[in-house]
C-alpha cells in the first residue's frame, strides 16, 4: 500500500465525478440542449436519395416536395369540395340531408372533431366564446341561435367545407364523414342549448360556473 499523497484527493474526486457524470448520462437522467443537428457517427443509409414528405427537394426549382395538384385533378380516394362560399343553394340541393345517421359513434366522433377544430373559436357550447376570440379574433355568431337552428344539415356542412366570411374552409383538414359528424354534434349542442334555456335562469348560471371551473 502506497502512501496517500495530497494529489490523490483531487484525483479521487475527479474520478468519482467522472463516473457519476457517465452514470447520469447513460441512465438518461442528464441531458443538455443543442441547436446543432444530432451527431451522425455512421450516417450510412440514414439519408437516402429520396424525398420524404415535406422535405426540401433538389429536383424542383422551388425546392418544394409538397406539390400543388395540377388543375382539374383530385387525389385518389378523395373528392374535392366542389362549391365556393357563395354556392349555398347548390350545396343545399346536393346535400338535402346528412348521408350518415347520428349513431353514438358518429356523435362521439363529432364531439371530438368539434372540440379539436371548432372549439378554439366557437367555444365548447357553440356560443362563440372560444379561447382564440378572447385573444382578439373576430367573435363568430352563436351556433345555437334560432336562425342557425333553422339551417339545413347541408348548409352547416357547406359552411364547414367552404368556409364563411373570415372562417377558412375545413375541407382539407376534415374528411367528409368527419364534417357530417360535426353537423350532428352541432345539432346536439343546439338541442342542449334549447333545454338549458327552458330551465330557470339561476340554475343555468350555476351550471355555467361549474363548466368554467372544470376547464381550469
Amino acid at each position, binding site marked *: 500500500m502506497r502512501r496517500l499523497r495530497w494529489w490523490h484527493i483531487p484525483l479521487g474526486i475527479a474520478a468519482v465525478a467522472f463516473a457519476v457524470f*457517465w452514470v447520469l*448520462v*447513460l*441512465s*438518461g*437522467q442528464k*441531458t*443538455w*440542449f*443543442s*441547436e*446543432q*443537428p*444530432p*451527431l451522425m*457517427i455512421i450516417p450510412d*443509409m*440514414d*439519408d*437516402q436519395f*429520396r424525398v*420524404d*414528405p*415535406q*422535405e*426540401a427537394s433538389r429536383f424542383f426549382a*422551388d*425546392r*418544394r416536395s*409538397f406539390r400543388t395538384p395540377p388543375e382539374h385533378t383530385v387525389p385518389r380516394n378523395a373528392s374535392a369540395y366542389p362549391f365556393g362560399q357563395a354556392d349555398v343553394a347548390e350545396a343545399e340541393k346536393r346535400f338535402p340531408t346528412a348521408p350518415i345517421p347520428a349513431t*353514438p*359513434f358518429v356523435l*362521439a*366522433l363529432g*364531439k*371530438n*372533431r368539434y*372540440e*379539436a*377544430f371548432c*372549439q*378554439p373559436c366557437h367555444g365548447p357550447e357553440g356560443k362563440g366564446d372560444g*379561447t*382564440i376570440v378572447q*385573444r*382578439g*379574433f*373576430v367573435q363568430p355568431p352563436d351556433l345555437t341561435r334560432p336562425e342557425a337552428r333553422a339551417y339545413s344539415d347541408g348548409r352547416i356542412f357547406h359552411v364547414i367545407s367552404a368556409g364563411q366570411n*373570415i372562417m*377558412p374552409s375545413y375541407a*382539407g*383538414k*376534415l*374528411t367528409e364523414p368527419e364534417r357530417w359528424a360535426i353537423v350532428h354534434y352541432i345539432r346536439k349542442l343546439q338541442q342542449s342549448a334549447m333545454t338549458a334555456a327552458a330551465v330557470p335562469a339561476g340554475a343555468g348560471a350555476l351550471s355555467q360556473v361549474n363548466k368554467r371551473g372544470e376547464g381550469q
Partner: protein
Amino acid sequence: MFTPRTDRRIKQVVLWGLGSLLTAALVTYFGMHNRVTDVGYRPQQPVPFSHKLHVGELGIKCVYCHAGVERSAHSPVPTVSTCMGCHLVVKAESPRLALVRQAYENGTPLEWRRVHKLPDYVHFNHARHIRAGIDCASCHGPVERMGVVSQVAPLSMGWCLDCHRNPERYIIPAREISGIFTGLRANGQTVQLAQSTPVTNPPYGMWSTPVDTPEIAGVPMPKLPGRGPENCSSCHY
C-alpha cells in the same frame, strides 16, 4: 532481461494504456447512443412559434394544425394558410410573423427545421400508433409546455422495442389536449381517459429530458390492444 525498475515502468505503461483504451472504448460506445447524441436537439425555428402558448395556454389541440396525422404515416407540419387562418386577424402586424405572411403572399414554402427524424430505412406510421390509443406525448414529450420544441426521446431501435415489448410501462394514453380520436369503447366512452391530466414521467428514461414539473404517474392506463410487433419487417420494409 530488464532491470526491475524498467520492468515496473513497462507494466505501468501497459496497464495504464489498456485501461485508458478500455475507458475510451466504453465511453465512445455508450456515449454515442442516441440518448446522448440526439436527445436535447432544440433548433431555433425561423418563426418563433410557441407550442406553450398555442397548446398550453390557448388549448388548441395537436390535430388542429397537424391535421391528417390520424390518417397518414407522416405527421404534417401545417401549411402557412393554417397559421393565417387566425393570424390574418390576430397579431396581423406582428414582426415575428413576417416570414409567415411573406410565405403566404408569395406562395413560397416556409422552411421549418425538422426536430424528429428517423433514419430513412425505418418506417414509422403515426396513424397506426394513434389508432392504438397512444398519445403524442409518449414519444414527443410534453410539447404543450415547450416554448421551443426539443427532442425528448432517443428514437433508437432499442427504445422502440422496449415499448413494443412492454407498452403498459411506457405509453401515455390519449389525452384530451391531443385531440386524437381513438374510437369508442364498449361502454360508449371514448378512449380519451386522461382528461387534462398533466404528462407524467414514464418509469425509466423514456424521455431523457427532465420536464418542468414532473408528476408521478396516476393516470389510469386503458386496455391496450396488445404489444407491438417485433418482426424486422414491421418497421424495416
